[in-house]
């Protein structure tokens, strides 16, 4: 037994989960501690400092690839973390798709990490890492796949700057899952004909839900800024199939974000409800 172990017991930190234990929510891993969340997009990095109460204290962003930004900002991030642990939201080189009849047997979450092929079957690609979000009432699931090489590259870059990933997730997938859960728990919303749009710093995910069924999904990550044509192309099938009573639910990473400012005109006369809250992405990542 080392003196650190004794200190951890006396400060009660030995009774808390380790910072990189994925079974626990962020506030449980960093109780009364400052933490840093970073969103890595294509050619753009944004970050947020959470104070000891878990509230957003400071935000910042910089253009450039993560490797470049990390070399400039790592000291600042380190000074605002406990032992160099940070939370990463990956916003590039991933794809979200709609799947059906995936295995949901007990422990599927652990199985997805250890033996993803047993959960995904033929859809498994060894160069990807996966996350799933199931519709609680149907056999549909959202499947997110991101590049294994991209994750390894981020981990390597962080190691080079004495930073340690407490968590690496895909922010857009987390936002989408959060919004789908919210819809599923609201009986009024659940029965409506919905186009669910989630937008996070040039990444877009659009889902059509009708009477509780997820019918269609399109997703693109790392869009070029001002790429109006691609966004329009992605939204068109949903808008064309929309009924007069179809409602659009929009969630962005922040209030009055890029999508609200540039792409709302695509929905024409459809009823658009923006459910984005202040510091939406950081609050979702910092509270779950």
């Amino acid at each position: 037994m080392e003196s650190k172990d004794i200190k951890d017991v006396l400060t009660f930190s030995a009774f808390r989960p380790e910072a990189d234990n994925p079974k626990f929510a962020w506030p449980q891993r960093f109780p009364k501690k400052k933490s840093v969340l970073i969103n890595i997009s294509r050619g753009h990095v944004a970050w947020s400092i959470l104070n000891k109460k878990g509230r957003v204290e400071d935000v910042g962003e910089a253009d450039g690839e993560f490797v470049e930004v990390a070399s400039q900002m790592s000291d600042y991030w380190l000074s605002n973390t406990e032992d160099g642990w940070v939370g990463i939201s990956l916003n590039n080189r991933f794809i979200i798709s709609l799947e059906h009849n995936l295995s949901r047997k007990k422990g599927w979450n652990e199985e997805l990490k250890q033996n993803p092929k047993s959960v995904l079957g033929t859809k498994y690609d060894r160069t990807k890492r996966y996350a799933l979000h199931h519709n609680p009432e149907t056999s549909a699931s959202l499947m997110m796949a991101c590049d294994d090489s991209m994750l390894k590259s981020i981990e390597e870059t962080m190691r080079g700057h004495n930073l340690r990933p407490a968590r690496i997730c895909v922010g857009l997938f987390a936002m989408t899952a959060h919004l789908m859960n919210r819809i599923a728990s609201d009986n009024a919303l659940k029965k409506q004909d919905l186009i669910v749009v989630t937008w996070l710093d040039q990444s877009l995910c659009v889902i059509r839900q009708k009477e509780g069924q997820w019918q269609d999904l399109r997703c693109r990550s790392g869009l070029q800024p001002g790429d109006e044509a691609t966004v329009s192309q992605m939204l068109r099938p949903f808008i064309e199939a929309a009924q007069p009573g179809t409602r659009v639910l929009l969630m962005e990473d922040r209030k009055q974000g890029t999508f609200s400012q540039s792409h709302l005109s695509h929905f024409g006369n459809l009823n658009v409800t923006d459910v984005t809250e202040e510091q939406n992405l950081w609050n979702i990542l910092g509270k779950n």
Partner: protein
Amino acid sequence: MDNIIHDLKTERQNVSEGLPAGYKLVPVAFYIISIATVFLCLFFYLSKKAYESTETVMRERLTQAQSQQSGFVAQQNAISAESKKAEGIAKWLEGSRPLQPVTVAVGRSMGKDSTVAELSLDRNPEIPAHTFMQLKIDGGGSQQLEHTLSAINALDYQTYSAQQVKGRNSTDFQATLIYTDR
């Protein structure tokens, strides 16, 4: 609802979930004991300080009492010495009774055939109550000596270490006379 955030990082082996909550009793007990120890140390420290101050006061009182006692003892000794001196004087005064009645009693005790040939009364200056008497009586014999001694006894004098020597017509007698207060 399941967890909405799925961790994609490369998992580290043996990631701890933290010790069981029941074990929190260990540090809690440690802190309780630590606090109790601090309070006890404080209590004992204050008690020791209070005892030391009381002891200092008691020592001062003891010193004061001892100095008073030695004063009293000195006074007592002085009084005792004065008393002894006074007793000596009183005894001396008591012992130095006038010897004239003895000479008168010896003279009057003489019969018609007897005379006092010699009479000597020497008082011991150290013990004034003791008077050494030498008496020589001519004539009268033992009867006259007994008569004379009876007269001396009548004056409350006792004779000690008496010696008597009879001559052909005289009697030598010597003894220590001590006055007895009846």
